[in-house]
């Protein structure tokens, strides 16, 4: 979240007492004299956080990671021998794997693209003051306070085939003649979970982009106006290039997060109907619940690998054309 605020403060002063006033005691000339003391201070301040995260996050993660290479089933704990890559082969051999992968792609892109576009539009339009803008922002902020799981439940009720309000509204508008069993058909179920996720995720984009937009100096727009640039040209040649770093980082964070976000689908369809709306992480839940920890863990490692590869490529692709200062 601090992505936008880190650029200003990186002036190192290697030794030399004169500059120490610039950036605080620990960095300037006194740095060398108190190395041990400084090291102890850093360690003492970091220790509580490090201990908690190491014990309750990293240890279970690593212990869980090695299960991927073992036969680890709750049904038979007497044999937890090492089995090499068998769990990974089982994952790929599963007939549902293709659907699960395809759904994950639909889930990520079908969520991120509308979230980005709508969030961008909201940010552009929220930049200029208007009456009750603060209230408006507070209201569209609300979905963020709700858990993905509960949002799944909310929309499960809205899309209910018999008593759902979505069918009622669509019938009133004359768009459908008969109630649609949204969550009983894989295609419409996927559309429904995407709508729920778009409802949820737009706010984050809007906030991040709005913050970035407000950092663009007015002079740039004035200059563009003097040059006779139209709205579209200003948008594509000034606004978007200027905030591209924020845009790229926000997209990166969101892709990672949405990929790793089983909660909504879990609450809304539970992966159904017929396992047709599972994404990789809800599939992992299902396999965990079946007691096959080894295979679930293999799935988890695949997710991590995929996200790491994605993050590296994405960062390379967005850094490449760096002609802009931010």
């Amino acid at each position, binding site marked *: 979240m601090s992505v936008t605020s880190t650029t200003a403060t990186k002036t190192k002063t290697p030794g030399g007492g004169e500059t120490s006033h610039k950036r605080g005691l*620990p960095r300037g000339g006194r740095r060398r004299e108190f190395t041990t003391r400084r090291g102890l201070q850093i360690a003492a*301040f970091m220790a509580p956080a490090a201990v908690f995260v190491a014990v309750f996050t990293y240890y279970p993660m690593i212990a869980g990671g090695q299960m991927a290479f073992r036969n680890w089933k709750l049904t038979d704990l007497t044999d937890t021998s090492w089995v090499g890559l068998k769990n990974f082969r089982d994952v790929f051999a599963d007939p549902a794997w293709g659907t699960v992968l395809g759904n994950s792609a639909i889930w990520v892109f079908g969520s991120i693209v509308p979230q980005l576009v*709508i969030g961008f539009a909201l940010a552009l339009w929220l930049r200029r003051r208007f009456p009750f803008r603060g209230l408006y922002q507070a209201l569209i902020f609300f979905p963020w306070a709700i858990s993905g799981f509960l949002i799944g439940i909310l929309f499960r009720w809205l899309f209910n085939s018999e008593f759902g309000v979505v069918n009622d509204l669509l019938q009133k508008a004359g768009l459908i003649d008969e109630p649609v069993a949204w969550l009983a058909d894989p295609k419409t179920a996927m559309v429904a979970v995407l709508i729920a996720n778009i409802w949820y995720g737009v706010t984050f984009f809007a906030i991040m982009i709005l913050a970035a937009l407000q950092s663009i100096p007015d002079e740039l727009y004035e200059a563009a106006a003097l040059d006779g640039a139209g709205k579209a040209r200003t948008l594509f040649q000034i606004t978007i290039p200027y905030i591209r770093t924020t845009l790229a980082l926000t997209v990166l964070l969101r892709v990672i997060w949405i990929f790793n976000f089983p909660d909504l689908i879990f609450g809304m369809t539970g992966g159904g109907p017929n396992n047709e709306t599972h994404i990789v992480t809800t599939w992992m839940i299902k396999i965990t619940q079946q007691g096959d920890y080894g295979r679930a863990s293999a799935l988890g490692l695949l997710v991590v690998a995929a996200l790491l590869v994605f993050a590296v490529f994405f960062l390379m692709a967005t850094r490449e054309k760096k002609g802009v200062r931010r």
Partner: protein
Amino acid sequence: MIGKESTVGRVVKFTFLGVWLLFTVFPLYWITVTSLKAPGDIFKFPLAYWPERFSLENYSGLFGTADFGTYLTNSLIVSTVAGATATAISMLSAYVLARFEFRTKSALLMAALVTQMIPSFIALGPLYLLMTDLRLVDNRLGLILVYIAVCIPFCTVMLRGFFENIPDALEEAAMIDGLSRFSALFRVLLPVMRPGIIAAFIFNFVNCWNELFLSVTLMNSDSNKTVPTALNGFISSFNIDWGSMSAAAVLTILPTMLLFAFASRHIVQGLTSGAVKG
């Protein structure tokens, strides 16, 4: 500043903003209306967009037949203690990461980022075994400890951003006046940071309040369940009772929504001021 708006442009803008507002608020409105209908009326045609007969029966059922008061209390205790402790701990780590340069710093930030990339299900099995060894399964303290660890990485990154927005001349002056670094942090920096700290706490609180999978794994007995765990029980049954479900949903959403309404300004402000200075 951004050029003049044409009338057409303004109509398009406010139509869009209006439609989005409706789309955002309607699901929340609908679940509230559902929860306030008399139980039988939920399944009556035509669907009523405003309750014909207001009834709190769905709510009273939650506290009578289900033990929703206990779940709410559990969630409240766990989220408050874990959220506050995580904020305090993250304040120390965030301070160091914002104010010191040292070799392992980028590694530590990376370690924080990695925790967000790994699906939590990979850790559930070993975590359960660990908590069994510590005799902390089905125990609120156990859940609190785990939640603190869950909150710390993101909270640290967030607070670090707030620290970086404060000029360090502030605590330097205090330290020249003879305060130790620790007391400079508490007496000088924290009062300035109050909005950021409150926002961070609310973030943590809401995350703990909403957390489902860890709590389902670690809390078995009914008297220890948190609200999301109870809701999970509601949807696991074959026929969902939408009357009590909607009432439970409203009771779950309401506290976090109030907190966010209160804190949204601080959260947005924190981001915005960071962007302007960056």
